[in-house]
C-alpha cells in the first residue's frame, strides 16, 4: 500500500491521539478546503467526527477539522497519529506517512496542482521522503 485510504470507524481503544501537524489556513488556496469538504462530506458531518485515514505504514491518522467564526469551514486541520497509547512515534515513519498524505491530497485537489510538482519540490529541498518518489 502506498497511498492513503479513508476509513470509517477505526479502533480507538488503547490508542492515543499524537499531534503531528497543524494547518491554520486550509483555505489559503480554496481548492484545498474543497477537497477535504468533499472527501469527508463535511457539509453534512461538520464537526461531528474527525476524518480517519489509513497510511502506508499501517498507522491510522485522525484529521480534526477546525472551524473559526467568519471563515468557511473548515478553516484549519490538525493531523494526529493514533499509535498504541503508551508507545512513542517512529518519526521517519511519520514523515513518510505525511508525505503520502500530501501526495494523496494534491492528487485529490487536482487541476494545476500536480503530484509531480510536490515530489519535485520535496527533492529540491532534499527531503529524503521525496527522494524515491
Amino acid at each position, binding site marked *: 500500500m502506498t497511498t492513503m485510504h479513508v476509513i470509517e470507524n477505526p479502533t480507538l481503544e488503547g490508542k492515543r491521539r499524537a499531534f503531528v501537524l497543524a*494547518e*491554520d489556513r486550509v483555505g*489559503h488556496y480554496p481548492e484545498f478546503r474543497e477537497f477535504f469538504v468533499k472527501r469527508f462530506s463535511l457539509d453534512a458531518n461538520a464537526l461531528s467526527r474527525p476524518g480517519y485515514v489509513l497510511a502506508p505504514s499501517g498507522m491510522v491518522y485522525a484529521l480534526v477539522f477546525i472551524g473559526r467564526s467568519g471563515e468557511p469551514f473548515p478553516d484549519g*486541520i490538525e493531523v494526529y497519529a493514533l499509535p498504541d497509547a503508551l508507545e512513542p512515534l517512529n518519526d521517519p515513519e511519520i514523515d513518510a506517512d505525511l508525505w503520502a498524505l500530501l501526495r494523496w491530497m494534491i492528487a485529490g485537489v487536482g487541476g494545476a*496542482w500536480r503530484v509531480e*510538482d510536490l515530489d519535485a519540490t*520535496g527533492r529540491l*529541498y532534499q527531503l529524503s521522503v521525496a527522494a524515491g518518489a
Partner: protein
Amino acid sequence: MDASGAALRFTHEEWPYEPKFKQVNGWRMHYVDEGIGDPVVLLHGNPGWGFLYRKFIKPLTAAGRRVIVPDMIGFGLSEKPVREQAHTLDGHIANLTGLLRQLDVRNTTIVCHDWGGPTGLGFALSNPDRVRALIIMSTWAWPLPPAEFHKRIFPWRMMHAPLVGPCLLGRHNALAGRGMYLSVVDRKKFRAEAQSVYENILPDPASRLLTWTWPRWIPLDESARGLARFEWLERELRKSKLPTLLVWGREDEVFDHKTFATRFKELLPHAEGPELVTGRHFLQEDSGEEIAGKINGFLDRIEGR
C-alpha cells in the same frame, strides 16, 4: 532560555552584541542597538533575522552611526507565536512601530530587505517625522503583479500550500536551510559560515510558522489579504521625497532588478541606483561589507560630510 524554551542570547564570533528586548503588542521583540549617532535600522525578511546584517554593524557604527537591528516577531531571538492568525502585515508594521517609538528614534535611515520592505516602508510612510532616508534592497511595495517566481506552483506555491507548508517548512525547516542556500551566490561559503545559524535559530517546527505564513501574504490576485495595505504603500511611496538608495543583487532571480528595482525607480525617480552587487535574494550574505560601504557613502553625501 526563557520559560517557553526560546533562546534569549546567541553567541557567535561575528555576533558579539548584547541582546535587548522590548514588549511590543504583547510580544517580546529582540533587537541589537550599537553605536552612537543618527540611527540606521536594518530590517530582515523571511526566514532571516538580525544575523543577516552581521557584516553591516561594525562599518556603520565605525562611521559614527547608531545601528538598530530588530528581529521580527516570529524570527531570530524574538518571541515566536504559534498561531498563523498572530501574523498580519499590519501587525508586523505595528510591531516595528512599537519598537522604534519606544526607542524614540529620529532622523532614522530605514534599510529594508524582503518582508523588511513592506514592514519598514510601512513604518517610514506612517512616521515621516522620524525618518530621513531609505535604503531598499530586493523587495516590493505594491499590490500586483507578483514576481514570476511567486506565481509558479513549482516550487513557490507548492512549498507553502496548505499542509505542505507546515510539513516542508515546519517539520523539515526547508526555507531556513536549503531555501537560503539556493538564494546566495557563494553557496560553499554560506554553508560553512551561516546556514546552520539560520537553521538553528528556528529549532522546532512550531518556531518556523512565519516561514510559511509570510509567503501566503504575498498578493497573487485581487482577492489577496493585505491588498489594500500594499495599495496604500504604493500610493504613499509615490509621494515620498525621502532620499533613497536602491541596492540589488545582480543575480537575484526572485525580485530581479530589471523588474523590481526599475519599478521602485518609477515610483521614486529621485532614488539613487540601483547599485548592483554580487548577490541573489540574500545579497547581504555575498556582499555585506560592500553594501555597508555604499550605505555609508550615501549617508555621507546627504549629510554633506
